């Protein structure tokens, strides 16, 4: 990390490895995050995609939005597929059959493909130490199939399989912390990121690609369709998630936890929740419960983290 140079906000790479003409929803926060990821990675990359929105909207035959090599195999196995690609490049380079030693390998999946059905393949690939970047584009439910709950759906959220009702407050469980699970594998790089903090996100992607071995990025990806907010609020919702401590930004570099930005004057969680109709059934009591949980988790995170010198400056953040 010593040689790391961040992106210059005035001179971002112009290339778009992911082309326009894709069929993501208006205001899609997931494709926005993916676009930023790809901008940071450039074109010397091979991508393995899980099944999900990003797969469907970028690859309907005969058009593809991909300007870099891309493969989709199934839902739960992006990490295993990229393991194969990476290993093939390793051995073919070693045997002199190709001369492409610097290719970056990226696997991405949604929260369902990461936290649920793909967790085993992800854990296997992280544990084996393949040199790849894994990105979870977390929009907190199975959006591709019609907004069903996943283990990454937050407490209280309404989905089509966690509907609120007389005997239900919506999602009954608290969000699974996959970034912490990834960090528990002892891999060299783990980070959380948000498209609202684009430069921070891109710098983290760059670091993830730079480290030898596996890197895991958990990227918050607002979904106007599934979360039920107006399409122009995508970045605002993403920003509020960070500012309300709902989705704190941090890195885990070689086991050391580093907070990317300290939230000194956090906004109340209610401000974040009220923008989204998936939470509109929540009572004051439930919102208080969520606030308490968010506060406790943030405190827990702070204890683990090296404190940045100055608020908002930990990763040379410029926007906001």
């Amino acid at each position, binding site marked *: 990390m010593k040689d790391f140079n961040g992106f210059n906000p005035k001179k971002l790479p112009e290339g778009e490895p992911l082309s326009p003409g894709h069929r993501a929803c208006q205001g899609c926060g997931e494709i926005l995050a993916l676009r930023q990821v790809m901008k940071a990675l450039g074109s010397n990359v091979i991508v393995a995609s899980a099944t999900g929105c990003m797969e469907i909207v970028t690859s309907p035959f005969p058009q593809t939005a991909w300007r870099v090599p891309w493969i989709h195999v*199934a839902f739960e196995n992006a990490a295993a597929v990229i393991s194969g690609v990476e290993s093939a490049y390793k051995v073919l380079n070693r045997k002199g059959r190709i001369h492409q030693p610097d290719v970056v390998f990226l696997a991405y999946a949604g929260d369902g493909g990461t936290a649920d059905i793909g967790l085993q393949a992800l854990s296997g690939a992280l544990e084996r130490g393949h040199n790849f970047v894994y990105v979870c584009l977390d929009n907190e439910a199975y959006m591709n199939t019609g907004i069903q709950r996943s283990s990454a759906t937050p407490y209280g959220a309404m989905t089509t399989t966690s509907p609120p009702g007389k005997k239900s407050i919506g999602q009954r469980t608290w969000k699974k912390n996959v970034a912490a699970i990834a960090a528990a594998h002892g891999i060299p790089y783990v980070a959380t990121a948000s498209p609202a903090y684009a430069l921070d996100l891109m710098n983290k992607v760059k670091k993830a690609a730079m480290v030898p071995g596996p890197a895991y990025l958990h990227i918050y990806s607002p979904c106007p369709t599934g979360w039920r907010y107006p399409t122009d609020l995508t970045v605002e919702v993403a920003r509020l998630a960070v500012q309300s401590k709902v989705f704190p930004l941090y890195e885990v570099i070689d086991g050391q936890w580093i907070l990317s930005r300290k939230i000194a004057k956090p906004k109340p969680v209610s401000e974040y929740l009220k923008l989204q109709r998936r939470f509109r059934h929540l009572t004051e009591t439930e919102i208080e419960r969520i606030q308490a949980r968010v506060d406790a988790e943030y405190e827990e995170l702070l204890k683990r983290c090296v404190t940045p010198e100055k608020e908002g400056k930990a990763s040379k953040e410029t926007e906001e």
Partner: protein
Amino acid sequence: MGKRVGMEVSIAAAEMVGLCDVDVIAAYPITPQTHIVEHLSELVADGHLDAEFIPVESEHSAMSTCVGAAAAGARTFTSTSSQGYALMAEICYIASSLRLPIVMAVVNRALSAPISIWNDHADLMMSRDTGWIQTVAENGQEVVDLLLHAFRVAEDHRVLLPAIVNLDGFTLSHMIEPVLLPDEDEVKRYLPPYRPRLRLDPEKPMTFGPVGMPEVYTEVKKAQDEAFKASYPVIVETWDEFAKVFGRRYRPVETYKSEDADVIILTMGSTSETAMTAVDKMRAEGKKVGLVRLRLWRPFPFDELYQALKGAGAVAVMDRAMGFSGGAGPVCTEVKACLYDRAFYPYIQNYVAGLGGRDITVENFEEIHDKLVASMKRGDPMGYEIINVRE
């Protein structure tokens, strides 16, 4: 010239895969496949084979990793059995649809429940329609030869499909027997280096596995089916070439004393050897019985099978898996369909035997023969019957 050595068949299989200079092996242990991948990991560990051995966390990931590696241009191999095969089945379909020439040894074993580590063909039948070329070995030599052939035919640019070599668990995989392993030069003469036609390459970016809308899905499947059918003559051709290099000839359908036979027993897999001994015995007793063995299971050898059976008055088809169709087992169903299409209707009975490690003996084949003849005389076809079972 290669050397004739005594060797466990699994070890010989691994040695052969090593001789094929495979690039990536991704595998998960399951009995009775384990010895194959253990030995491959040893070959890599000792530096005898320059390959990436990826000890994945499941069979599903084994096949997924092979798909990724093959798409990146590597020669890939995996091996599995039974439950593991069932777990990876989802990706097997995708491997063939993506036209990736992965080679797999399936060490055939029963499917649960009850859990059985022993041999039958339940796993083979479960995955019969995944779009993989599938051959079936009867002895250790054939395992070795068919593996080499599998790489050759899978990677042929007229084919580009994945290929499976089936070998019976334990009764074949764990047998120590003489095997003639070719030397490196012979292998090289028969198997050229793998040159992928398309691969994941940042210098030539392509999209593998796009979404198939209803407007294209049928066309994609038609193209795959045509490629699958077109593999048949290439399989035969590369076997003929194999015969020229190694002197051993393989055919999609193999026969034994069947030319003048009134009754033909039809088998698949290592039990065919026992069946040959049974045929010899029955011939000595004056029974006009012969044997037809399926070497190629997919694509199914319709014409060759008809040619092999067309003189027979009666056929006893052996299945080593339950059909659970309420009728005949999977091999018999296929055989009947084949003959029906050619308007040839011999007397056919189906005998299910050898489930979950139940031995199939010479005596069982005599019993099958006698049952068939008796049933024909009585004229009361049973359809199918389980042999050697306690009531």
